[in-house]
């Protein structure tokens, strides 16, 4: 097979049927690569190595005290917090705010998201508003929130609620949009009622998108914890971090940030569990 007819026909004919054992050679291997081999416990090793280097750097004075405290100091701050019993007060206060704000924000967000996904009018009317308000930084609105919701739990919960509402709306309506139209058509072809189609086809079909929206809204909620607890919070991880910042107690600051990180990991683990359970039908 060639572009020109330069290869003589005879050369071809010769080759047919003869197997020249001497020239048998393996097919060169050219696959491989571009796949991820699990490498065992690299992550913990890297993590520990970084901690160790950091600790050594701090102790030797290579990393200045005011730039970054040693991890051992941050750990010490965490232990102090735990032994003083304040840890639970802070974590408890934050969890309460996260829970209430996130639950309300998600419920409202799912409701509005379903409306936007199902009704043309809601989509045309609400979607531009949602898109316009989603990127508004919540810290910018804190002064307004103080006026609207006071300096008690109200404004803190509201900050988190606002932060989680918009991404949930967007995830939900995108999920509804992505439900296989053929499944909806199937429902209609069997004469299922509108409500049945929504309940049995659209909502479960949008569930993966809603759950992955939860992941995003949960991390936004945690990020907003600090902003929310700027106003009049005595307790809470965010308040603890702010206090540490104000006192320039970097060990406590790092400890607080680590707490938030762990909180984020826990929540995403929980959502992972929920996904496993609710979406076991996926591959």
């Amino acid at each position, binding site marked *: 097979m060639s572009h020109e007819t330069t290869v003589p026909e005879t050369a071809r004919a010769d080759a047919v049927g003869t197997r020249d054992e001497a020239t048998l050679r393996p097919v060169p291997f050219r696959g491989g690569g571009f796949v991820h081999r699990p490498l065992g416990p690299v992550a913990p090793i890297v993590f520990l190595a970084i901690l160790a280097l950091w600790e050594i750097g701090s102790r030797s004075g290579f990393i200045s005290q*005011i730039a970054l405290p040693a991890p051992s100091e941050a750990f010490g701050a965490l232990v102090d917090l735990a032994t003083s019993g304040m840890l639970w007060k802070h974590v408890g206060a934050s969890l309460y705010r996260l829970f209430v704000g996130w639950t309300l924000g998600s419920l409202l967000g799912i409701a509005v998201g379903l409306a936007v996904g199902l009704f043309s009018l809601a989509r045309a009317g609400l979607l531009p508003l949602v898109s316009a308000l989603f990127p508004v930084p919540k810290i910018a609105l804190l002064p307004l929130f*103080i006026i609207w919701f006071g*300096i008690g739990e109200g404004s803190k919960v509201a900050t988190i609620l606002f932060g989680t509402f918009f991404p949930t709306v967007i995830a939900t309506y995108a999920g509804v949009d992505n439900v296989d139209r053929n499944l909806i058509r199937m429902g209609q072809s069997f004469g299922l009622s509108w409500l049945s189609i929504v309940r049995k086809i659209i909502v479960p079909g949008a569930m993966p998108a809603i759950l992955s929206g939860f992941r995003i809204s949960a991390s936004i909620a945690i990020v907003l914890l600090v902003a929310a607890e700027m106003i009049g919070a005595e307790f809470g991880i965010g308040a603890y971090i702010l206090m540490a910042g104000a*006192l320039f107690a970097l060990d406590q600051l790092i400890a607080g940030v680590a707490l938030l990180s762990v909180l984020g990991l826990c929540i995403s683990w929980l959502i992972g569990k929920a996904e496993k359970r609710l979406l076991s039908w996926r591959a």
Partner: protein
Amino acid sequence: DKINVGILSLTSHSPSIIAEAKGYFTEQDLEVEFISFQAAQPMAVAIASGDVDFGMTAISGGLISLADKGVIKIIGGALQETPEIEGQKIIVSKAAHDAGVTTPAALKGRSFGITTTGSSFHYMAHKIADKEGFDRAEIHLKPLQKVPAVIAALKSGQIDAWSIVPNIAGPLTKGPEVVEIGKIADYIDNYQVTTVFTSTANAEGKQELVKRFLAGLSRGIADYNAALVDKSMSEEDIAAIVAMIHKYIYSDQPIDKADPRIRAGAMRINENAVLSLASVEDQLEWFKSEGLVPEGITMDKLVDTSFVETR
């Protein structure tokens, strides 16, 4: 030499502005650039990091923490409560007043606005509790990050009480929402409200520069006291000084609006930046007793007494 001076938008920062405008720093061969901050804590951090050379703020937990790490030092005093001049006020919301909070003693069990943990407001609240003989925990502190947030919370009755310098307290108590119930001077003796500070590197390595700065500043302080506290200058000169200050403070308002605000309730700034060691020590002890700063910090680490007179 070029130096950076950190300021907040408060009248108490006027002396360096006056000194710069009147050329007192130039006389000391200093080229000054002002850097504005929204809050005291970042200013302290910026001095520690070397971005700013000199600053003037209340003693806060952050400042002491940085001093403990050996990066900044108090080198002089500024605003101080003196008996003959009106000092900081204790004010309460109308609702709290109606509910019987008419004296500081009634603050027990009430909420009290502060900006951040370890701020001067925090200190004042606890000093009131100490003197009135109730537990510090019985005054509920509400950290609100910024002064305007505290004002809003007080006006709307979301917090019960606050303490603040007279030029802010004055306009507030004129309105119907806020009532004055006491003076801080009754609870803290010779309160050294703000201090002048610099980085340890400057204090130890560039003593001559620090001296020149303080010399220039002192002349600015003298003018400030004369113009706004003692009012011993001619009205023209006072107006000229107010105009200088207006370039940095209340600059978003027209001069005719800003003028009375700048003049109102100016508090005395210590001549020659004299420092009250006793008051500083009292504050330091309070911070330690609250566990807000490391145990090991001493006055030596916090204050460099070699530049100004102390008392």
